[in-house]
């Protein structure tokens, strides 16, 4: 098999892989009159009316900002709490470290799906149903152990001598964390931010359980609801889908290298 045959086969696969996305974009941009054409016909006259409709009347602006808020907070807080915990696990000596290691290891095994029922009860008992905070706490808890391990393995590559030197200079642990260790850990920070943002942006199950009021809905729940009530609104549905996909697709295209590294490393989730 020549290289050109391989390239051809791969080209066909690549086109097949992106075609569902391309067709969705096509449909979202078509005037209703062009829907009689087969889906693979590109739109002849572009229209953004479906996006406007979904964004305003469909409530997607609200869903979008709810999703964005939760995902950004998730990503930022995750970086802070996971790196702090990993710092303690790697650079500090204390009793019960092994127990904690096992505890965090358990977190890698817990499938979110299996524990959503009690999770709902706990969030409810804190009065956090239909709040951003409730979802944020749940998101953080369910992924924190992955990122603690990610930061830990990164910190283990930091020369112990660097840490020792800073200690001898009289720096506190927090100063060493802020000024010495975290600046070197940028790759781990970027990976954590991207992955946590992505998972948070995409999740449906937790949001479906914890957000029942319309004004608190995220894009995933909003789209599910829209699909249930407006089953035949093909253009609206595809616009909604594109609105949900565009931010993560752009992030992926800009940070592909980091994503690929992160997804292979954080593949346990």
């Amino acid at each position, binding site marked *: 098999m020549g290289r050109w045959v*391989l390239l051809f086969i*791969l*080209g066909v*696969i*690549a086109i097949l*892989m*992106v075609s*569902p*996305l391309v067709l969705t974009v096509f*449909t979202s941009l078509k005037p209703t009159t062009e829907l009689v054409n*087969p*889906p*693979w016909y590109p739109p002849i006259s572009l229209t953004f009316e479906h996006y406007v409709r979904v964004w305003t009347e469909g409530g997607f602006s609200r869903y979008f900002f709810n999703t964005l808020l939760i995902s950004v907070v998730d990503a930022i807080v995750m970086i802070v*709490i996971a790196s*702090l915990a990993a710092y303690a696990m790697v650079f*500090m000596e*204390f009793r019960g470290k092994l127990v*904690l290691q096992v505890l965090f290891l358990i*977190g890698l*095994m*817990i*499938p979110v*799906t*299996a*524990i*959503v*029922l*009690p999770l709902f*009860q*706990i969030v409810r008992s804190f009065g956090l149903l239909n709040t951003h905070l409730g979802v944020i706490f749940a998101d*953080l*808890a369910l992924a*924190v152990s992955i990122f*603690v391990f990610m930061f830990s393995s990164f910190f283990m590559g930091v020369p112990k001598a660097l840490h020792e030197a800073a200690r001898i200079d009289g*720096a*506190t*642990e*927090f100063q060493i964390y802020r000024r010495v260790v975290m600046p070197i850990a940028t790759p781990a920070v970027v990976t954590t931010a991207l992955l946590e943002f992505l998972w948070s942006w*995409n*999740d*449906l*199950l937790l949001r*479906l*359980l914890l957000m029942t009021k319309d004004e608190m809905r995220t*894009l995933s729940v909003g*789209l599910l609801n829209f*699909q249930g009530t407006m089953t035949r609104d093909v253009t609206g*549905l595809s616009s*909604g*889908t594109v609105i*949900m*996909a565009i931010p*993560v*697709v752009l*992030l*992926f295209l800009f940070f592909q290298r980091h994503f*690929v590294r992160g*997804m*292979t490393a954080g593949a*346990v989730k």
Partner: protein
Amino acid sequence: MFLDPDSKLAQRLNPVLFLLPALTIYIVFAIYPTYSVVEYSFTDWDGIRPDRDFVGLENYQRLFSDKIFWEAFRNTFVWSGVIIVINVGLGLVIAAMLARVWKARLLIQTCIVLPVVISPMAVATIWRWMYQPTGVINQVLETIGLGAFATPWLGSPNVVLYALAFAHSWSTIGLGVIIFLAGLQAVDEDLYEAARVDGANPLQSFRYVTLPALRPVTAVVFILTLTQSFKVFDIVWATTQGGPIRFSEILSTYMYKRGALENQYGYGSAIGVSLLVIVSIATIIYMQIQNKEDR
């Protein structure tokens, strides 16, 4: 943090301060619910009453004699099996081809991995639309003269589970491909050279060089795909909710129906525990393999 860093107090307090935020959230919202799901599964709780009665193994006895549970159980395995065959088999082949190509490699890889970042909810909407009786898939089949295979994909009892598994594979295969690619880059080029000198054709060198070298990576992708497909909820719920009738019911959707919609918290939790046990076992195996590889 403002204490003298060398003081005894600082040394005892620091780990607590650094670990507290992560640990508190983790224990309250992940560890405690994990304990609770087991506890609930031994009760008759409805999720609303303030009290619940211990009923021993009643929920589990019911589980064993529940025909729907076993259907969901079977469907979950079939579902995972289909996804594993596609993601591991096709994923490996695609990665092996990709590794031999330099031109346009990044572009092709981007196209294949892109669906991985798309939300399962969006994936569900896209494929529900494509699978409609008058949808893209059937239109394509008719256009190329295969109209006889056209079917209401999500409405046919014998097809729906496979159709959904295929859609899920579309959105996850990229992950397998990049893990395989990473593995392939670690294969010694000299082995291929030696195979070529010995007169092996590309298929033979794939069979006798690539496959054996990739065995550990294959195991990783296998178990990873297994654990991930066991946990799936979103795409099935957003397309068929387990239907028509129960032909695409999997453990997660069945648990959601019993537990969250019908308020049978005890019973729903027993289903959750079964999911927890299966996924935990698979994950432990996965970590063992990865550990072995690191060494």
